[in-house]
């Protein structure tokens, strides 16, 4: 009745219950946190803009990204979004980064696009597009959540360069 096995089992069950409770409380406490991040982006330059040999358009941009986010580990995504006759929605990630600690939550980055900005087809000339900053909070335990800030009114040039 009071063998080692029973005691160990009872202890483990108790420990796991407490752990589960703590995890649940920790992930519930996310609801009380309402961050108000800010971000800004400028397209400083269009480095080149061409039609690739296979017929798809490709652009290279220089971006200036600044923002203030929260103190979680999260991934952050700057995606270009636009519509073409073929595709209802095109989302192309241009840059991403990881914010590991609170000290890095405020950032200012001057960069060219990290991932290639290639269209499926040749629709990018004179195209209006949005730049959206997405961030995805990656908790140790609990629900992953995401949010975004959209910035509108960017336009690609009418001609290749």
């Amino acid at each position: 009745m009071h063998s080692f096995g029973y005691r160990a089992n009872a202890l483990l069950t108790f420990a796991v219950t407490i752990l589960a409770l703590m995890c649940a409380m920790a992930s519930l406490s996310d609801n009380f946190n309402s961050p108000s991040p800010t971000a800004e982006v400028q397209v400083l330059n269009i480095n080149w803009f061409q039609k690739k040999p296979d017929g798809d358009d490709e652009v290279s941009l220089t971006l200036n990204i600044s923002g203030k986010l929260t103190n979680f580990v999260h991934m952050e995504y700057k995606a270009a979004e636009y519509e073409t006759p073929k595709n209802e929605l095109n989302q192309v990630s241009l840059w991403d980064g990881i914010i590991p600690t609170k000290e890095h939550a405020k950032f200012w980055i001057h960069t060219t696009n990290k991932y290639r900005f290639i269209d499926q087809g040749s629709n990018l000339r004179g195209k209006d597009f949005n730049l959206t900053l997405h961030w995805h909070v990656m908790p140790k335990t609990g629900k992953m959540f995401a949010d975004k800030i959209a910035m509108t009114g960017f336009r690609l040039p009418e001609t290749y360069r």
Partner: protein
Amino acid sequence: MGWIGEQIDSIKSLQFRQVLTQAISLGMIVTSALIIWKGLMCVTGSESPVVVVLSGSMEPGFKRGDILFLHMSKDPIRAGEIVVFNVDGREIPIVHRVIKVHERQDTGEVDILTKGDNNFGDDRLLYAHGQLWLQRHHIMGKSCWIFAVCRLGDYNNDRKAYHKVYTHRSFGVASDYFKRMRVEKFVLETSKTWWICLSHFVD
């Protein structure tokens, strides 16, 4: 003789009852695990609702041994989300982040490109030969919950070695205890390993 025979019979029946009780409680553990598993499948709509991460390609977000809860709905897939997908000819599904989405105007079909946060390039090298995009049917689910508190054991860098060693070890332990009918210890061992036995693995 009659008195001794009665005693032996009573002992025999006692042992039989104990064995039966242990067998039933064992069955209860197994069925409850199965009920939770199938219940999660119904709730999340994903064919493998709980997965264990094996590789470090999504570090620092997901480390080896983190448990992910997946969820599969009709919601569209968008850039930045973390999806688990199958590649033809590859045994183990992959969990990576979506970096490009092209959604068709008329049919609603999508072309998706993924990349691991810790990888240098995108996933085209991991896809089947000649495959440039993932389609909707490759996607097994989106990761929506993470449980990284109890990293399941020590991980070998080589995931195959890990997989082999760990599953074999736990099954070995299980059958050992099963033979000896030491239910109380078996409960300990099962509660630790049933997640692993039922969970699927992703890279």
